[in-house]
């Protein structure tokens, strides 16, 4: 560790502050099943998830009066070459996700032992604060169809 010209260690303790980390998560869902006829059944699902989280602005106290070391800078403060600004910290902790997903499907009984099915799902994620993994915005859909046979 560096020492000043008169031999004292250039160490001035630690500084701290208190900060709030907040997260807010909303979840909404809607499911419906409808037996349209004796042969046909319809179903659907919608879900929406919105999640936000962030650390409040980090405001460290003014500690310049503790950094006075005349042997380094007469009349001034030490450590002026270092950046103790934490403006980037809240950005790194930011989280802002929105996820919409919906699914629709039907089944139709062609005969008492043969049923046709079809369904599809779509999901969309919007990332408004991408950081650790980059921007994670993306979407996908899957569609599916088939026949069920009862024995």
């Amino acid at each position: 560790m560096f020492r000043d010209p008169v031999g004292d260690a250039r160490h001035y303790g630690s500084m701290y502050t208190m900060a709030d980390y907040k997260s807010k998560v909303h979840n909404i869902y809607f499911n419906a099943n409808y037996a349209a006829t004796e042969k046909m059944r319809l179903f659907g699902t919608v879900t929406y998830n919105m999640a936000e989280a962030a650390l409040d602005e980090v405001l460290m106290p003014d500690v310049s009066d503790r950094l006075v070391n005349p042997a380094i800078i007469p009349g001034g403060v030490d450590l002026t070459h270092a950046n103790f600004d934490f403006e980037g910290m809240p950005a790194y902790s930011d989280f802002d996700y929105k996820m919409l997903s919906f699914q629709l499907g039907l089944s139709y009984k062609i005969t008492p032992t043969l049923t046709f099915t079809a369904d599809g799902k779509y999901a969309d994620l919007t990332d408004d604060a991408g950081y650790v993994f980059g921007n994670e915005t993306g979407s996908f859909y899957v569609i599916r169809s088939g026949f069920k046979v009862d024995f």
Partner: protein
Amino acid sequence: MKKMISIFSVGLLILLLPVALVAEENGGTDKYSLWIGSHYTDFTDYTKSVGEYNLGNNEWLPELGFKYLSQRDNSIYTLYGHYFDKNNVWGKINTRVGDKFTGEFQYRSLVKQMGQDLLVNAEAREWLPPDTGGKILTHEITDPDADYKTHRQEFTGKMSLLVSHKNNVRLIAAHRTILKSGTEQKIASTHCFSCHLTSKTAKVDNRTHQFETGVDATVKKFDVGYRLAYRIFENNAPDASAYWDPAKHPVSGGAASEFASRVIYQDATLPFDTYPKTEKMSHKMKLKGDLGKGYFAGTLNYSKAKNKSTNLATTAWTGAANYTMPINPKTRLIAKIYGARLRSDDPWIDLPTYRDGAIDGNFMDFDYRRYSSQDRIEGRISAEVITRLTPQMKLAILAGYTKIDRYDYPIVGEGTETNKLTAQAKMYYRKGLKYTAFLKYRFESISDPFVSGFGLFEAAGYQNPLLDPLVPTSNWVFYFQREALRYQSVTSQPTQVHKFEWRSTYRPSNKYYVMLGVKGKLDKNNDLDSLDVKHLSIQPHVNFNLMPDPAWVVTAGYSYNFDKSRVPLAVALFDG
């Protein structure tokens, strides 16, 4: 893998044997259904979050599902399965033959996709512009196009066999295997003289096996049981390795031998972030039955977990007992007691001498014995009185006490004792089938919760003899001397906790109902000098269920979760 397949084949045969036997029975019901279809998947932009567990291709792929149910007078057999693709498969077999035999076997397989930490926050430099320089933090992604994903397969099986109606002697056996394979990201961190993070792709190939066997029986008026369990985790993938930079001054690049004498390794390719081979053996005994005017249930457990890679072990004794007894026709008492003792090995950490052979006398031996913060003895006791106030209303009042005695943390031989007092009230209300309500409040008062010993704050070293040179003839002051400046233990654990919960259901008819509720928690710690640690969470929710006519079923709901944590952030102020 062949050995695994053999084991599961034997398990399947054991389950299928009763099926063959019941198939000989006349009558009964057999139902089969087979679904054959196809699916098509399409992704846009970043796929690893929205499609974390969804893999697919821009082409139609086959998909298959089946169900089978066999029912006889004395037995039921079911078989379910679904094939989405070769990595997403599920199957389950259930067998029950009277009260003599039950068996279940399940296989689940899925793939989890994982993103890559881009390490963009790991980029800093000591000096401010325009005089940029000084120590520097950098990162390197060696595998920018990596596609991390792991395939998880799980096999579970459990069986129960009644071997004697006399004393109801029943044998139990269960098994669970988890296999994980694929790739994952690992990040190597070099020493502070080069402050350099390196991201690498590592193979994943590990497995967990769990076995449990035991016996249950009835002895006189008590049900007794014993379980022996064994679990092992092992990694078969090659260890990830990284190159550690040569030691040198971070700015000038000189003084290589001086910096090399301060670190344990440098200028070498070494394994890092390795998986240990671990195993755990446990014994559990249980006893329950009527005792006096009430009902007793108790368990006693012993377990030993061992890291076979380091030959370190942790042992645990735990015991719990509950006793429920009526006080009067409207009131009953539930008394509970729990005890635990945890001990971990205390290894000797043998390190190379710091600045070994330094002629200026500034060398240091950092060898030490590591004591575990897990070492503790814990006791809990509680009593709850539940009484019916009116035909519609029930009240439960609980009081409890917990004591945790840590032997060696934060100071060897001077561990902290945590004491917790708990008080809780719960109210239940029911008005026929139309309206129900539940209300709960819980308060906890905790003294000396678990702390981080001297882990956050440093006193000033300037003009402080604690940062004088170790050797009077030397001008050197070392980073490790800052340990002497550390003060005040800190914690995010509370000394007071308030919990609140309310939920209510209104069902005016069989066609619809509404459920409303809210949960809340506020905890804080007022015992920390100058720190104001507290947490708040609130979770309201509402759910609807509508069945306006036999053709329609509609459910909907909303929930909100708010969390706020007030935490300290600290940074040391020094140069060098």
